[in-house]
């Protein structure tokens, strides 16, 4: 049973990253997604379920089709991660730049 993990954990798999990227262009059906990938439809469905469990993807019914699309909340978590990464990196940069600068004391 897949427990709700972190979105980044779900993207640890290359096929799931490709599915995630494909969905950035807009909603797709399982068939559409499978057509562009070297994996079977059942495999794509399974990957979509994992992405759904971590909140990156949602699905809705469009007539008889199921359409999968990105979930804005999960994508927000990814953005926060990138944002947090640069915060940390720039804080370290600031410390290094001020440390190395000879006239840097205020």
């Amino acid at each position, binding site marked *: 049973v897949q427990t709700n993990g972190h979105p*980044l*954990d779900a*993207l*640890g798999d*290359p096929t799931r*990253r*490709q*599915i*995630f*990227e*494909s*969905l*950035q*262009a*807009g*909603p797709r059906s399982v068939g559409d997604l499978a*057509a*562009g*990938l*070297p994996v079977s439809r059942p495999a794509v469905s399974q990957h979509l379920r994992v992405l759904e469990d971590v909140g990156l993807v949602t699905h809705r019914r469009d007539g008889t089709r199921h359409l999968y*699309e*990105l979930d*804005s909340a999960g*994508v927000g978590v*990814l*953005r926060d*991660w*990138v*944002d947090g*990464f*640069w*915060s*940390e*990196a*720039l*804080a*370290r*940069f*600031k*410390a*290094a*730049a*001020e440390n*190395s*600068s000879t*006239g*840097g*004391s*205020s």
Partner: protein
Amino acid sequence: MSDALVIEIVRKTITVDCAVEEAFRVFTADAISWWPVESHSIHQSVAEIVFEPRAGGEVYEVSESGERGHWATVLEWDPPTRLVLAWNILNAEAEPTEVEVRFLPGDGGTRVELEHRGWERLADSGAEKRANYDTGWDFVLGEYVSRI
């Protein structure tokens, strides 16, 4: 494409208490002194980070055993005020995102503005065109993926 959902531009600003020239130098030529290589690099231990100082140059890490790992390609190199990188760590063939860093004089020090953008390009390029390549997301995940 109207209903595309992509990551918004990431913008960061900090003020550093040193001259613009020194800030640019430390950011690029002395990146090894501050980049969090223990969590965000390709190799286990990184000895050096190289910014080739010209448009078209490469940014790469060198491991302690001398292996190179690609990080980015320099798109614009305007020392000491600005640089723009096509960021695709791990794989130069992967669709890049873009990182721009500006160094502006102010408040007796340097205002550093960083923008990480171009997420929509990951969507435009489509995964199917390059099923054999790592995806653009690999850059973001970097070492994170190999730790999980």
